């Protein structure tokens, strides 16, 4: 994430929506996501067929149970650190007046986090389910922690919850005109967060269903259908885009009004996060 000093420097050099300014969050977060995805794909490519078929083996524990715990720990630690940083640095900003350029920059950072959430949702909803389908229609499962479930269910699913919650916390403290707590909880984030949480909850139902009704893989089986609901609820992302676009037009209008006023004014962008 950006630092205060780096951000002040960025503002001195570039405008709030120049490609080198707030959008850096988008590039870096997407690059990290893609790097994680590449690592997990190569891991599965190397080990799924060699050690991933027998969950009772020591090699499976070494390669896959370790990966499972490593994923949960790394996502948990990332969430703790990021949320802590967002709240700790966000609380003092609550009382600050935000210059228009800074608010625009913050909206661009929010869009960047939403962009990363979008990429994470694609990876968990399309990229990995394809391998999951291919794997489970072919291989006999002897555990819920199969080689394709571990990257998909236990890394990208919780990561999407973390990213959606983080996006809300960012807006809650830094874009009060849209997400101040006194306005109430936004429906947009309610839908987006509940989409990600529902997906995670459905994992439990799915594993239970496979242990009870159907150990084979019929992909269109009704107890898989709740996974689809998350893809629909994630439409809340469009509402986040919509309400921040409306705010952008309001900022633009007020900036124009200020410019038209005959009194002298300053437009220096204040530091913020």
């Amino acid at each position, binding site marked *: 994430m950006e630092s205060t000093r780096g951000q002040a420097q960025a503002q001195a050099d570039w405008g709030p929506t120049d490609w080198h300014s707030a959008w850096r969050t988008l590039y870096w977060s997407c690059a990290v996501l893609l790097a994680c995805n590449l690592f997990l794909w190569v891991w599965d490519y190397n080990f799924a067929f060699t050690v991933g078929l027998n969950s009772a083996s020591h090699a499976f524990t070494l390669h896959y149970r370790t990966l499972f715990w490593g994923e949960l720990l790394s996502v948990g630690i990332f969430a703790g650190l990021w949320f802590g940083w967002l709240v700790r640095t966000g609380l003092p900003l609550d009382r600050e007046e935000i210059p228009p350029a800074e608010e625009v920059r913050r909206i661009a950072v929010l869009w960047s986090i939403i962009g990363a959430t979008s990429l994470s949702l694609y990876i968990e909803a399309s990229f990995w389910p394809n391998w999951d389908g291919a794997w489970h229609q072919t291989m006999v499962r002897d555990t819920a922690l199969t080689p394709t479930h571990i990257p998909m269910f236990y890394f990208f699913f919780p990561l999407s919850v973390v990213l959606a919650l983080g996006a809300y916390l960012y807006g809650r403290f830094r874009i009060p005109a849209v997400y101040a707590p006194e306005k109430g*909880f936004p429906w947009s984030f309610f839908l987006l967060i509940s989409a990600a949480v529902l997906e995670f909850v459905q994992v439990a139902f799915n594993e239970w269903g496979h242990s009870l009704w159907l150990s084979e893989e019929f992909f269109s089986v009704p107890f898989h259908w709740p996974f689809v609901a998350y893809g629909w609820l994630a439409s809340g992302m469009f509402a986040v885009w919509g309400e921040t676009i409306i705010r952008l037009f309001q900022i633009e209008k007020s900036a124009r009004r200020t410019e038209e006023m005959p009194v002298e004014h300053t437009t220096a962008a204040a530091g913020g996060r």
Partner: protein
Amino acid sequence: MASTPATMAPAERQRRLELRELLNAKYQFIDRTWDAVFWITAIFIVAGAADITKLLFAGDWDFWTDWKDPQWWPVVTAFATIIIPSALQWIQWVAWRFPTGATYTCTCLFLATWIGRYFQWHIAETYPMNFVWPISTVPAAIILDWLLMRTRSFVVTSLFGGAIWAIMVWSFNYIPLAPFLQPVPFMHHIMTVSDVQGIAYIRSQTPEYLRHIERGALRSFLGETQYVSLLFGGTMAMIGYWVGQAIGRFLAVWPIGRYIKTL
């Protein structure tokens, strides 16, 4: 026909002047980078939503050539693939009056499906691409968008578009499928090429009793099975279209600027 300024009503003239002023205004903070970021980052969520909907409602029929049967494939595919394109039609029409929502969605879905099918099914699981190739809904989407542009009515688009969708999705994908339906002698039986593929590539977890193929009384229609299925597929697509409209209207657009009052 476009009306000239002289024949235009004053209110319409005023509205057009305001739109022109909005278009030519000098913006301080709003520029094309917002458009670029929106259209590019939305690709992922749109592709993900469209693909998970297709995978879990009709995935089995899309994964393999031997599942692309005349009875279930036209019905479940038409329903599953029209939902998210319909939602995006509403979003793009309301936001920009762009009749491009279905084409945008189906192009995203096409890319996502091919990435998944190539890297996961072909590279990782070593199935040949000519056994696991995905269908394309892009041609049907172009026609659905054209229909909305011409009629400017979601009701008409759903009624005619739903039926056309089922026929188009089937007919455009029948072209690559047809070679796999050719007869071939295999172990003293006449089978199709796709049947032989299904036997040659073992799918331990998808036994025959799971397959919803050629089951039920529709067999008594003999050669007409396909057309009966397409007709029902069209009906299902009309229903799917309104499921998509509900997603676009109530989950994507309605929540804009609305809040659950104080928790």
